[in-house]
């Protein structure tokens, strides 16, 4: 019996035909991948997340497919949605009849502007092989361009569905540019069925004084693997607020990196609700490159079964970035004796006039809180479930889209065994 070499995954996925557009960046990505292997627990940043199972799975590019998305529609966004199935544009599932004039929201393969944007919107950071894989092999993705001073009132819905029967890989690509003074809310959602590997790459440029609110929902299939790279740059006085909710996938990793210019503001919140043997890893990088930037990061994990959550929050304050205000908090709830959380802040502060706070807490439910609810007539199980729900749902309260907020509350209720408590949503 022969054992596949660790690098076979990369080689297998690159053995298929190279899509014809964007040849130069694809060749460059392939060159970087040549001879590379998947990271192992010996590599920095990967000590807690073992990709061995991934390298043993014979992934091939995902075939074309159709999907019924009627259950995934959100009423506020029926006329502002673009849907991709197995990495390809699904025109019949999409509808953009309600887009405001001037706002561009379309598949990359139909967007003439895309070639100027790919790889240029946000500065490059240390690239993971998954980002290079995406660049080398992505079929399609979404382009969002919001012109100067346009404030979009309706949120956009960007839905990536993957449906496969055999181990297959998809590489969704998203390019977002908000010009100065523009404003946009975006819901990016990943869902599917089957043993797939998805490696989304999201590039974001927020212009001067522009505001992007980005809800990111990962509810991939329980047998799927999800590896996201997100790179954002926020110009002077701009704001990027994101909330990443991790529910699905047996193995997932989020690698967001955000660069803040002078007076820019970022929120990088996260929730991971994990059970069984799930592993969810977040390695974030917040770069305060210029003075007077503000960042808030609240990372919440609720971990049950033998699941494992990893959080590494790197914050760099450059020597020039005086007056920076960076706050990071990691709160974790362990629901079983075999659940595990590894959390570490990583502050690199090179300026002296800064306010940086960070805190991490890992624990079980508070006996005082359980007792308080019991003293109002809730039995022990109901009290525990309600508190677990509350711990997770706290992050949902500020989601601006009402139907999404309700849907996610119901999802969290079901995942925290709190559905029996009735309709708290």
């Amino acid at each position: 019996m022969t054992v596949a070499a660790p690098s076979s995954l990369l080689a297998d996925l690159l053995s298929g035909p190279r899509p014809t557009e964007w040849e130069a960046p694809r060749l460059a990505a392939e060159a970087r991948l040549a001879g590379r292997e998947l990271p192992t627990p010996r590599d920095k940043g990967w000590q807690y997340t073992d990709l061995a199972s991934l390298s043993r799975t014979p992934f091939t590019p995902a075939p074309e497919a159709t999907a019924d998305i009627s259950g995934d529609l959100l009423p506020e966004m029926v006329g502002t949605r673009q849907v991709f199935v197995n990495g390809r544009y699904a025109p019949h599932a999409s509808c953009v009849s309600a887009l405001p004039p001037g706002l561009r929201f379309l598949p990359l393969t139909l967007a003439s502007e895309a070639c100027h944007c790919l790889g240029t919107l946000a500065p490059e950071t240390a690239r993971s092989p998954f980002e290079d894989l995406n660049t080398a092999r992505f079929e399609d993705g979404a382009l969002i361009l919001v012109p100067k001073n346009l404030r979009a009132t309706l949120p956009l819905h960007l839905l990536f569905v993957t449906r496969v029967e055999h181990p297959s890989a998809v590489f969704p690509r998203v390019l977002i540019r908000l010009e100065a003074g523009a404003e946009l809310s975006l819901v990016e959602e990943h869902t599917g069925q089957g043993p797939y590997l998805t490696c989304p790459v999201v590039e974001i440029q927020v212009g001067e004084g522009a505001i992007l609110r980005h809800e990111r929902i990962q509810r991939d299939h329980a047998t799927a693997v999800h590896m996201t790279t997100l790179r954002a740059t926020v110009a002077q006085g701009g704001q990027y607020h994101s909330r990443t909710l991790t529910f699905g996938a047996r193995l997932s990793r989020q690698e967001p990196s955000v660069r803040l210019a002078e007076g820019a503001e970022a929120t990088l919140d996260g929730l991971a609700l994990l059970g069984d043997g799930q592993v969810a890893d977040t390695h974030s990088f917040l770069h305060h490159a210029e003075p007077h930037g503000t960042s808030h990061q609240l990372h919440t994990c609720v971990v049950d079964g033998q699941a494992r959550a990893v959080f590494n929050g790197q914050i760099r304050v450059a020597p020039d970035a005086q007056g920076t205000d960076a706050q990071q908090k990691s709160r974790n709830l362990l629901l079983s004796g075999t659940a595990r959380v590894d959390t570490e802040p990583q502050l690199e502060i090179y300026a002296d006039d800064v306010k940086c706070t960070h805190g991490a807490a890992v624990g079980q439910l508070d006996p005082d809180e359980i007792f308080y609810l019991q003293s109002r007539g809730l039995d022990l199980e109901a009290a525990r479930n309600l508190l677990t729900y509350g711990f997770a749902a706290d992050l949902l309260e500020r989601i601006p889209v009402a139907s999404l907020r309700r849907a996610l509350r119901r999802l969290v209720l079901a995942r925290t065994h709190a559905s029996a408590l009735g309709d708290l949503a």
Partner: protein
Amino acid sequence: MLSIKNLTASINGTPVLKGIDLEIKAGEIHAIMGPNGSGKSTLGKVLVGHPAYEVTGGTVTFEGKNLFDLEPDVRARAGLFMGFQHPIEVPGVSNAAFLRLAYNKKAEAEGRDELDPLEFDDFIHEKIKLVSMKEAFLDRSLNEGFSGGEKKRNEILQMAVLEPKLAILDELDSGLDIDALRVLGDAVNKLMRPDHALLVITHFPRILETIRPQFVHVLSGGRILKQGGPGLAIELEERGYDWVVEEAAPGGHR
């Protein structure tokens, strides 16, 4: 309704209640007063089953049942309630959803119909008027970011929703201004019925001007040192607690 006999309790091995006897009958209002650290709050928390305290001796029956055979939630559904001095904040759980859940758990236990969200809306509307609470507090997370006074208002709102047979109110007046105290005191009086009883735990006699007890007990060092009628509260306001403690000390005159 409640019968406490020679109750002793400790926390982390340290005795805090050293033999309490107390009888509360339906229709009665009792006040437990005493200096800080006397064991007043402990008595309330032991009665509602706080897990930090260990009952080391004595008996308590509530409506004929041995209280210590019942889990805290069963005691609550049986009609025992404590309004806490420092209510806990529970982020992520809306106040309205929590109140409806608590109401329905009790209704279920009593074989009454549960209320759906719309029915509960009408029900809670009347109750929040009673405690003069703003509707916005219903949509907020339970006690999260509430001021001390708002938390107390919310405790009395919970009491109004659950309509307990015996309500224990611990330091209701702390964190409240005079007007809020009067509103909540009046609400408690309105909730009082001939088949209900009240146990008011307080350091300061001020609250007893609105909620008027027939019986006043002075607790110090884990024991009830003196019992009296409403006049005792007035005397304590004028003279403080030291004289009661001295009077009860061995060799003190009685």
